[in-house]
C-alpha cells in the first residue's frame, strides 16, 4: 500500500520553476531513494512534503489524505518527520534539549523515556554528550543528533535529505547502516542522496530526478545497473 503518493507536483520560487510535475510514491516499509544532481529539486520536494513550501500544483497523498495544504505541524503530527539538508540542529540548546524538541508534539509522555533510551543506544555518542551544547558536536555527530531528533517524533515516514553530505567515509557507512535499521524497525524511509551508489544499494526502489522532472524509476538494483544512471550519477 502506498504510504506517500506525490502526484503531478510543481513548486515554484517566484518565477523559478524548481519542480515540474513530479510523480512518485513510497510504499509502507520501503526505503525509496530520490537521486539527482545539484539543483534538481530534491530539497524542494521534501520541503513541500513537510509543508514548509506550498506547491503551485499537484497533490500529495499521505495515508490517503491530501496533505499539500496542511500546516507543517499537522504533517509532523500525522507521522512525517524530516531530517533536513545540513542537519539544522539547534545550536545553543543541549543535545538532550534538541531531542526533547523532536518530541515537541508527543502526548504520550510515559513512553518518552524509552524512546530517549532507544535513541541513545542507537547513537551512543549522543548519550555521552547529552548535556553539551549541540553546536559543539562534529558534523557526523550532528547528523546523528538530527536523525535522533526526527526519530523522537515517532514517525511512520522519515524524510532524509542528504544524510551523508560532508561526512568521512567511515561515518557514511555508519549512517547507511542506521538507515537500514530504521527501516527494519518499521519506519518507512524516503532518502535523498547525491551519493547515488550508496543510496541505491540500500533502496528498495529509486527515482532519478533532473531539473525538476523524474527521468527514470526502478528498483535500486535496476538503477545501479543502468548505464545512463552510471554515467550521470555513479561516475561510471
Amino acid at each position, binding site marked *: 500500500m502506498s504510504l506517500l503518493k506525490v502526484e503531478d507536483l510543481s513548486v515554484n520560487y517566484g518565477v523559478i520553476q524548481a519542480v515540474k510535475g513530479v510523480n512518485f510514491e513510497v510504499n509502507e516499509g520501503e526505503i525509496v531513494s530520490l537521486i539527482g544532481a545539484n539543483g534538481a529539486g530534491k530539497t524542494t520536494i521534501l520541503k513541500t512534503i513537510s509543508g514548509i513550501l506550498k506547491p503551485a500544483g499537484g497533490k500529495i497523498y499521505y495515508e490517503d489524505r491530501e496533505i499539500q495544504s496542511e500546516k*507543517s*505541524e499537522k504533517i*509532523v503530527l500525522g507521522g512525517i*518527520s*524530516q531530517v533536513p539538508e545540513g542537519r539544522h540542529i539547534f545550536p*545553543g540548546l543541549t543535545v538532550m534539549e534538541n531531542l526533547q*524538541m523532536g518530541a515537541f508534539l508527543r502526548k504520550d509522555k510515559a513512553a518518552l523515556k524509552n524512546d530517549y533510551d532507544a535513541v541513545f543506544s542507537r547513537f551512543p555518542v549522543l548519550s555521552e554528550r547529552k548535556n553539551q551544547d549541540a553546536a559543539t558536536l562534529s558534523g557526523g555527530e550532528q547528523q546523528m543528533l538530527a536523525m535522533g531528533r526526527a526519530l523522537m517524533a515517532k514517525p511512520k515516514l522519515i524524510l532524509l535529505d542528504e544524510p551523508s553530505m560532508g561526512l568521512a567515509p567511515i561515518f557514511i557507512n555508519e549512517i547507511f547502516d542506521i538507515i537500514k535499521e530504521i527501516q527494519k524497525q518499521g519506519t518507512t524511509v524516503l532518502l535523498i542522496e547525491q551519493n547515488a551508489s550508496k543510496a541505491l544499494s540500500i533502496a528498495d526502489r529509486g527515482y532519478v530526478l533532473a531539473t525538476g522532472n523524474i527521468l527514470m524509476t526502478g528498483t535500486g538494483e535496476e538503477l545501479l545497473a543502468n548505464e545512463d544512471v552510471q554515467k550521470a550519477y555513479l561516475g561510471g
Partner: protein
Amino acid sequence: MDTILQQLVNGLSLGSIYALLALGYTMVYGIIKLINFAHGDIYMVGAFWGYYVINQLHFNFWLALISAMIFCGLFGVLVEWLAYRPLRNSPRIAALITAIGVSFLLENGMAYLFTSNVRSFPQVMHVVRYHLGGVSISNIQLLILVVSIVLMVLLQLIVRKTKMGKAMRAVSVDPEAAQLIGINIDHTISFTFALGSALAGAAGVMIGLYYNSIDPLMGMTPGIKAFVAAVLGGIGLIPGAAIGGFVIGLLETIMQALGFSAFKDAAVYAVLIIILLIKPAGILGKKIKEKV
C-alpha cells in the same frame, strides 16, 4: 564611600527597571529580528493600567502588578497579531517602520484618551526609608529590586526549563527546523511577546510607584535606554539584557552623583559607543557566526 554606595543602590533599582524592559526588546529581537520600538509604550500602558486599577478598583500593589502583567502580556500579543504578523515575510525595514508607527499610535492614542497631562501615581504603599550607615534605601527601591530579580529568575526558568521556553530558543536560532519538528511559529512568537510585554507591564507599575508620575510619553526615553541596554548586553541574549540594564542604571546615577545630571543621557550613549567600538556584539555577544 557612602555616596558611592548610595548611588549604587539608586542605580540598581533604576537599572532593574531598564533590565526588565531590555529583556522584552531582546527576546522579540531574538525571535523575529525586529526592534520593537513600541515596547517602551507597553510599559507606559502598564503604568496607566496600574494607575487605573489602584485608583478605581482599589487594588493593592501586588494585584496591580500582576494584573498589569497579564493585561500588558495580552496587549503585546494583540499588537504583534495586528501590526507585525501581517508583515512577517516583508522586508525588515517595513516591520521596523510599523513598530515606530505603533509607538506613535499608542502615545498619541493614550494622550487622546487620557490627555497628555502628567498624573501622579497613587501611592499604594507607605514609603519607609531604611538607613544603613550613611546609605538610605526606601522600601520601594527594595521592592523594585527584589521583584525585578524574581521576575528575571522566573523568566530564565521559563526559557531554560519549560517546553515553550525551549521552543522559543529553537525558533530563534532556526525557525525552519523548528517548523519541521512541529513547533508552531506563530504561537511561539505570541508567547514571546506575552512574556516581554508582561515584564514591561511590571516595570511600568513599579516606575509609577518610584517616580510618582506617569504620562503618555513616559515610555519614550526609558524605551530607548532599555534598547541601548539590550544592545549593550548583546542583542538577543537574555542575560545580556539584564546586565545591560543594570549597567545603564548605574551609569546614569553615577553621572548624576558626579554632578553631570544634564549630561547623564549623553554619558550613557557615549559609553554605549565605546563599548560597541570595543565589543561590537555587546558585552556578552560572541562574534557573529555566518550561517553555513
